[in-house]
C-alpha cells in the first residue's frame, strides 16, 4: 500500500531497478503469484484495541516487505479474519487454511482461542504464528510437541520481570501485598508467579487481599474499597486493557495512590491512557516487548513510532511488535529455506525447520523463535515518572530483560525453574 511519498519513491525506485537493470528477472517477478498471509485479529470487545495494534504492526511489516520486492520475489497479500469466540475463530482459521489457502496464519490473542486453534493448526498442517494467547499449562496438555504451531512468550514472563524488579527495589520495604487481577488464566498465573518469586527472594510478604474482577469490568469502587480497608504496602495488578486506567483513576480518587506502591505488569499496553492525573510516580510498570521511547531505540522502532503516531495519533504498544515479528520471521525463514532448497519456494515443513532458532530484527530489537516454537524477545519495564512532555506517565530508567532471563527454558516447569535460581 502506498501511503506516503517515501514509500512511493521506494516503489518507483524498485520498479525502475527491476525493469531497467534486471530485465532477465522482470518476467519472473511479473508471473510470481502473491503469497497470502492470513491474520486473525480481534475486532470487538476488550481485546479489540490489542487486535488493532497487531494489525498495524502487520501492515507496517507488509508495506516495507512489498516495497522491497516481497518475499523471495512474491508480493504479500493479507487476508484478515476476525478473532472472536473460540468456536467461530477456529472456523475462521480453517477458512484461511482451506479456503483462502493462506500459506501462513498469524494472530490470536485470547487464551481460549489459543488453546482451540493450536490443535487445529497441527491437524491441518497449517503454519500458525501466534501473537499472544499462550498459557503454558494448557498448551502442554494440548500439543506438547508442536510442529506447525508457533506460540508466544509464556504469559508469566511479565510477572517474572516485574517481580524481580520489585525484589530489587523494595526489599525490606514491603510487608503486606494485595493482588487485583483479572479472573482468568493470565491473571491467576501472574499473581501466583509473583508470590512464588517474592518467596524466593526472601521478601517475607503476606498477601492481605486477593481480588479477581472479571475481564471487561469497568467499576472497581468496591474493589478499591476492599483495598483501602486492607491497607497493603503494595498492590500488584496484571491488568492489560481498558481496566488498568480505570483502576488507577478510582484508586487515586480514593487516596490509595498515596503511600501504596503499585506494580502494574502489563499496563504499558495501554500506556497512553495511564494519565499523570491519576497514575503516581514510583510505580513499576511493564510494557511487554515494546517501549515507544526506549532510549536506545533502533532506527526501525523510531520510524515505526513516528509512522504510528502520524497515522493513528497514538503511540504504539507491544502487540504491534509481536505481529511485526511474525511477518518478518516468516519472510526470513522462507528465504533461508528457499536458498537451501535451491531457489524454489519451500514447503511448509521446510519453512518450519527454518523458523526454529531463527533470529530477526523486530521493532523491539533482535528476537526469534526457540527450537520448541516459543518466542524470544526483550521486555521493557521500569519505574514511572511524570517528567516527560506527554500527559501520561513514562518510565525512567528503562530496564530491559531478555526472555532468556525471564522465561522458563523449554522442558522445565515454572516453579522448578524459579526454585533453581541463585539469588
Amino acid at each position, binding site marked *: 500500500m502506498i501511503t506516503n511519498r517515501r514509500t512511493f519513491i521506494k516503489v518507483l525506485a524498485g520498479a525502475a531497478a527491476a525493469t531497467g537493470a534486471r530485465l532477465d528477472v522482470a518476467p519472473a517477478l511479473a508471473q510470481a503469484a502473491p503469497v497470502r498471509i492470513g491474520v486473525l485479529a480481534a*475486532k*470487538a470487545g476488550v481485546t479489540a484495541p490489542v487486535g488493532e495494534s497487531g494489525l498495524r504492526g502487520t501492515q507496517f511489516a507488509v508495506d516495507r516487505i512489498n516495497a522491497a520486492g516481497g518475499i523471495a520475489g512474491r508480493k504479500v497479500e493479507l487476508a484478515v*479474519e*476476525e478473532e472472536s*469466540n*473460540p*468456536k*467461530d475463530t*477456529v*472456523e*475462521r482459521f*480453517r*477458512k484461511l487454511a*482451506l*479456503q483462502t489457502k493462506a500459506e501462513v496464519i498469524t494472530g490470536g490473542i485470547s*487464551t*481460549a482461542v489459543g*488453546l*482451540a486453534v493450536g*490443535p*487445529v493448526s497441527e*491437524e*491441518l498442517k497449517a503454519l500458525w504464528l501466534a501473537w499472544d494467547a499462550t*498459557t503454558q499449562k*494448557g498448551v502442554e*496438555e*494440548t500439543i506438547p510437541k508442536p510442529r506447525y504451531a508457533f506460540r508466544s512468550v509464556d504469559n508469566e514472563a511479565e510477572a517474572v520481570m516485574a517481580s524481580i524488579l520489585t525484589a530489587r527495589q523494595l526489599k525490606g520495604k514491603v510487608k503486606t501485598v494485595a493482588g487485583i487481577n483479572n*479472573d*482468568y*488464566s493470565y491473571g*491467576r498465573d501472574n499473581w501466583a508467579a509473583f508470590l512464588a518469586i517474592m518467596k524466593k527472594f526472601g521478601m517475607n510478604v503476606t498477601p492481605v487481599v486477593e481480588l479477581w474482577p*472479571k*475481564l471487561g469490568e469497568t467499576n472497581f469502587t468496591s474493589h478499591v474499597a476492599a483495598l483501602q480497608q486492607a491497607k497493603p504496602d503494595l498492590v500488584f495488578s496484571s491488568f492489560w486493557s481498558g481496566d488498568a486506567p480505570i483502576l488507577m483513576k478510582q484508586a487515586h480518587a480514593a487516596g490509595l495512590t498515596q503511600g501504596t506502591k503499585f506494580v502494574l505488569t502489563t499496563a504499558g499496553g495501554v500506556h497512553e491512557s495511564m494519565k499523570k492525573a491519576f497514575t503516581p510516580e514510583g510505580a513499576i510498570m511493564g510494557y511487554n516487548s515494546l517501549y515507544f521511547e526506549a532510549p536506545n531505540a533502533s532506527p526501525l522502532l523510531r520510524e515505526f513510532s513516528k509512522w504510528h503516531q502520524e497515522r493513528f495519533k497514538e503511540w504504539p504498544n507491544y502487540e504491534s511488535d509481536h505481529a511485526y515479528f511474525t511477518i518478518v520471521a516468516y519472510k526470513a525463514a522462507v528465504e533461508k529455506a528457499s536458498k537451501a532448497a535451491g531457489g524454489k519456494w519451500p514447503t511448509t515443513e521446510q519453512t518450519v525447520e527454518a523458523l526454529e532458532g531463527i533470529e530477526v530484527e523486530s521493532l523491539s530489537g533482535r528476537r526469534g523463535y526457540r527450537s520448541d516454537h516459543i518466542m524470544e524477545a526483550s521486555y521493557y519495564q521500569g519505574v514511572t515518572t511524570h517528567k516527560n512532555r506527554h500527559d501520561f506517565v513514562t518510565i525512567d530508567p528503562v530496564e530491559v530483560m531478555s526472555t532468556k532471563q525471564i522465561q522458563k527454558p523449554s522442558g522445565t516447569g515454572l516453579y522448578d525453574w524459579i526454585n533453581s535460581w541463585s539469588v
Partner: protein
Amino acid sequence: MSLRLAVAAALGALALFPLAGRDYYATLMLPFFGYGIALLGLNLLFGTTGLLSFGHALFVALGAYTAAFLTSKLGVLDLEVILMAAAVAGAVIALPTGLLCVRYVRIYFGMLTLAFGMLFYSFLLKFYAVTGGDEGMRVLRPRLLGLAWTSFSKVEFLTGPFYYYSLAVLVLGAVVMWRIVRSPFGLGLRAIRENAGKAEFTGVDVRRYRLSAFVVAAVFGAVGGALLPIPTGLADPLLAYWTHSGNLVFMLLLGGFGNFFGPVLGAFVFIVLQDQVMSITQYWRFVFGAILAVVVVFFPQGLTGLLDRRQRAGT
C-alpha cells in the same frame, strides 16, 4: 407432496456435500448439525408451545461440557455414550429449572430463562478448578460406533465419518421430534399456545405439558450441544452467554418457527450468512442486527413463512 421432495433433495445435497471436495465448507456445515438439533428443541418450546426461552444456550453449553468432561476427564470416548449422557444431563438440569420457569409465561419466562443461562455462565467462568474457567475444557476426538477411525486425519474424520454421523443424529432427532409434534401431546402443546385457559378447560394439564416440552427441548439442546464442540476440540463458557441464546432465537426466527423445518433451515442460513458477511465487512454485527430487525418486522414467519406464502400464491 413437494415438501417431501424438498426434504429429500436437501438430505441428498447434504449427504453429497463432503464428496464435492471442498473441505472448508464441509467443516463449516458441522455446527449446523448441532444447532439444527438444538433448534428442533427450541422450536418445540417456542413454535409449538409458545414459550420463548432466552436461556436455551444453557443446555447447549451443558451438552458441550458433558462431552468435554467425559472425553478429557473420564476417558469415555464413545460418542453414543456421550450423546446419551448429554441427554440425561439436559433432562436432570431441566427438571428443576423447568419446574420454576414454566410457572410463568411470556416476559417472565424469558427473563427467568435468561437468568438461569447467565447463572450457568458465571458458574462455568468462576469455578475454574472444575470447569477450566475462561480456558474452557478440552473435547477429545470420540469413537463413532465403536471405531476410532485412527487412519483418518482429523480433517478426514470431520468431513467423513463424523459428518455423516452428525447428519444421521440430526435426521434421527428430526424424526423423533416429528413424532412428538404430531402426537396428542404435541396437539395439546399447540392448544396451550393458542389459549392456555381453554386448554386447561379441556383437561390438559398445562403445567405438566409445559414442563415436558421444556425438558424435551433441553434434551435436544444438550444433544446438539454435545456435537458442537467436537470440531473445535474445546468447550468454552461463552457457549452459555445470553447473546448465544439470542443467536439461537435469531436462527429460529430466521428459519420460521411456525414450520417444522424452520429451525433447521434457519441454522443453515445463519451459518452460511455469517461466513459470507464476515468476509465482506467487519461490521457484520450491524448487518445481522439489521437482518433480524427486518425479519421481525416484515417476515416474522421467517423463510419458511415466505416459502409457504409463495407456494400458496402459486396454487
